[in-house]
């Protein structure tokens, strides 16, 4: 016969395990919801056709002052400008998650991508891309370089890239990186090497 005080101790232990389990599940759900929220706060974009593909994105890591290639999956349409847009959004998705290796402001997104003569790309971003971008030579240069390099890796034949913000030209991203000029992709390759 198990002594009564021993039975009570086991019962209390089981109740404790049950309560702890419920608490852990609740916390996990909360964190997942937070991460989901960060991604979902991007403006709603029309659904994209195409099939899911593995693509390479060049991701900026602020603390290490480095750019590293990472593989991710994205729905990639056939049409080149839509493909360019989804490629760029795949990079931004890396920065908008929580925690982020290179935090960008809420609402940062790609509005449109225009392809000129098949080799020149004009990227139109949301205002938040520039307005809430952290100011500094390094963070701005890393953003520009990671986007152009990713685009170039996934859309062969691109030689020049320009950024506009909400349909208009802007002097700099956040006070430092040049947004007036067309970036030569070959020159950006050299910039990227400094961070690898």
């Amino acid at each position, binding site marked *: 016969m198990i002594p009564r005080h021993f039975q009570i101790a086991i019962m209390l232990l089981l109740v404790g395990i049950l309560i702890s389990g419920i608490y852990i599940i609740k916390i996990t759900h909360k964190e997942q919801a937070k991460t989901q929220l960060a991604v979902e706060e991007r403006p709603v974009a029309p659904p994209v056709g195409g099939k899911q593909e593995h693509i390479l994105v060049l991701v900026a890591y602020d603390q290490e002052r480095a750019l590293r290639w990472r593989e991710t999956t994205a729905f990639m349409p056939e049409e080149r400008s839509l493909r360019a847009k989804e490629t760029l959004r795949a990079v931004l998705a890396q920065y908008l998650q929580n925690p982020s290796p290179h935090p960008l402001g809420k609402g940062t997104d790609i509005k449109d991508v225009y392809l000129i003569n098949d080799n020149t790309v004009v990227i139109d971003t949301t205002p938040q891309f520039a307005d809430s971008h952290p100011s*500094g030579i390094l963070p701005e240069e890393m953003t520009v370089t990671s986007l152009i390099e990713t685009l170039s890796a996934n859309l062969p034949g691109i030689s020049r890239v320009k950024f506009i913000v909400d349909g208009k030209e802007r*002097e700099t991203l956040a006070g*430092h*990186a040049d947004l007036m000029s067309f970036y030569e992709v070959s*020159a950006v390759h*050299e910039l990227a090497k400094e961070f690898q």
Partner: protein
Amino acid sequence: MRWSKKRVSILTAILLIGCLLLLSAADSSRQFTIYTLQTSYSIEVVERQGQPYISLMELLEPLGVDNLRSSGNNWTLQLDKVEARFTEGKDTAKIRGKTVDLSGGVLVENKRVLVPLNASFAILSSLLHKTIDFHLAGRRIFIDNAGTRFTTELKKTDRSALVLNFSQAVNPSIHQEGNRSRLVFKREPLISDLINQPFDDKVIRSLSFSEDNGVAALTITGDAPLSVALGSDGKTIQVQAVQSAAPTSASVPAQAPGAQPSPEPLVTSPPAQSTELPVQTQGHTGPAYFVMIDPSHGGNDKGAFLSDQLDEKELTLAVARKLKAELQERGIAARLLRDTDTNLSLEQRAELTNAQHPGMYVAIHAGVFGQEVRVYAPALTSSPSAGERLAGERLVAEPSSTGSAQFLPWELAQAASLGRSKTIARAVAGELQKKDVQTVSLTTPLRPLNNIIAPAIAVELSADRPNAQDLLNPRIQSLVAAAVASGLAQARAQIEAHK
């Protein structure tokens, strides 16, 4: 009421003190001087919204604008059929149909339209379409190449004499302060690339040029009291030691042409037995070497957020001032693109720098991530196509040694200096490392480096955000400024040797 002698004396004393206070207040008023080929005039500078402002009509009336029409918040003026429209509160104006950045909002006080002093360059260049040379620190602006230059000649005789030859007649006021003579030019558009010229002479030690509060000044320092004599044509000034004791601190009016205050008659040619030293010439032969230091951001543009108490714009100005002092200690002249918390667009920074033809341009920045100093050389990441070059609106003139100029696309103004910029970046990084400062060398498409004609670099002090306050430490700032100055001096020597 009876007026005793005592009361009258007290009242007189009070009146005298009041007059003196008024005079001193008048003297300390801030002014801005505009020089044209025909005239020169000074206007009052007032402080509004944390930056200097001037009256628009005071600036433009002497140039031919006689009517400023208002319609609601809009103010319109015309000069030679060119229309300019200013709107109260707006920081841009429409001149010749184009938008001009004013670096601050237009203010209206008692029907007096005020514009930021820094906007005078943009307003005048857009309105007049003439060459404008803006000396921001000295608050002087020169229209259509107005300017009086001078050459110096040191003559060694029994009594050494420094002869200053001016391109136009001048009439400065002369102030004697011990062994120094200070010539103040209030109306003459005196310009010089000289900052300080030492002389290898026992009596006359140095000549320095300075400009401040809308006036220019030449200061001659000697080992004995000096006498100053103005030549009869007003184009020559001779400075030499006086033989007898002279008053040690006095302000004397400018001597009229023909007046001879010196014990000997003024001579503009060497006496028969004189020994002439190598002539030190300042003039049109080419600008003297100086470094343009650009404390990045300023005014409404705070730059990177470093901490709750620290914005990038404050730190850049502090470091830039230290760098200027360090360079001057090494005998290299330096100028600050801004010395106050003022708005300057990136275009204005490039335009002001290119107009002054510095030997080097150094942009000072501050940022986060890593306890280090980052030295950036420009990266030319754009190359306009041939079609764009032909159609491009924006070109910048690069003067050549032959006196002619070639035009470069604005985005590629740096192209010809890129190699020298890299040499400077390497030298600066090397000097920082010698002082055990963690240093990283990078290239960057940072604005406005690529719009600068001269060799250009950027130096960025960096700290992790929790330690950002460390950047305020004067010891750290001085250490970095000293290393950067040494690097610049070394790079200058390398570049000169290469030439």
